[in-house]
């Protein structure tokens, strides 16, 4: 028998995961939106966010994660993140600048607001794309075939 099913019944792991996962997700958001002031940015934030959700799946089962983030949603968000990034560039063009010239996003002032806005928007696009790609890769691995760790969870996982 795989230990995976027994891991999920360990109370210590469950309690710690319950306390830690929200913290990890919150820290991911902090890294995401604080990237222009401290270390970090969209890429790291996306990885941390996805890691938090994967820990959730490891402890509470794949079915629990599927209810939070359905696999089809990860596919849409993968494309959505890239599109958000590109859209910022196109919006800058419509506002009279070059592609991805964020200064054009704020035509009234000649300064930094457009840059701040643009950086936050594209970092969000990066974060969404990275987090959903990692989740999608994780889904691809764990739902590969019966007998694997993911498949061990998949059938009997609805509580």
């Amino acid at each position: 028998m795989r230990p995976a099913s027994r891991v999920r019944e360990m109370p210590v792991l469950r309690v710690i995961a319950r306390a830690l996962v929200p913290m990890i997700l919150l820290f991911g958001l902090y890294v995401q939106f604080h990237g222009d002031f401290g270390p970090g940015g969209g890429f790291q934030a996306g990885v941390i966010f996805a890691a938090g959700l994967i820990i959730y799946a490891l402890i509470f089962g794949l079915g629990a994660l599927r209810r939070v983030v359905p696999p089809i949603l990860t596919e849409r968000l993968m494309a959505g993140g890239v599109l958000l990034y590109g859209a910022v560039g196109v919006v800058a063009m419509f506002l009279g600048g070059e592609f991805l010239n964020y200064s054009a996003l704020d035509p009234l002032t000649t300064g930094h607001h457009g840059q701040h806005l643009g950086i936050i928007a594209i970092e969000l696009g990066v974060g969404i794309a990275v987090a959903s790609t990692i989740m999608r890769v994780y889904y691809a691995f764990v739902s590969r075939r019966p007998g694997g760790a993911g498949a061990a969870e998949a059938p009997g996982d609805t509580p």
Partner: protein
Amino acid sequence: MPPVELLLMLLLLATVIVVARLKDLFAAAMLTGIASLLAAGLFVLMDAVDVAFTEAAVGAGVSTVLFLGALSLTSRREKQERNRILPLVIVVATGAALIYGTWGMPVYGDPEAVIHHHLAPDLIAQTEEKIHIPNIVTAILASFRGYDTLGEVVVIFTAGVGVALLLGGLHRRGKEEES
């Protein structure tokens, strides 16, 4: 070399040697994560916090989980390799080439190094002037090199689609819940 760096380097070396010798792939995957964490510590000491952050999150975090996911699809123990000379030769040759490459690099921390004089002063000055955010790394990645980063995001997207096509099968329109 300062003692903390030396300690981390030695631990890293020990971890890597153990990983190479282990036959238990589960333990090897865990130790790979530890090696990443030690590397992240070294990056912090070199003041490359953004890189350290990435190394810790990706190397120690997610890739360990993905290794475990891959392990659950295959066997837990490595097969005995019949020909052990050829892999060793390849690894030693690659390592020697990399070390040879470092001879051409400037000494670590050398203020006269080309990289500190070519574009860096310009970018540092322009970050303050045009972008006005404290993290210069973010300013360069997101704004000055916006095209590059867009390309990188597309690479990540493509990698995700590739894995999904190879392993998981992408969802089709009209066939919503099934995988």
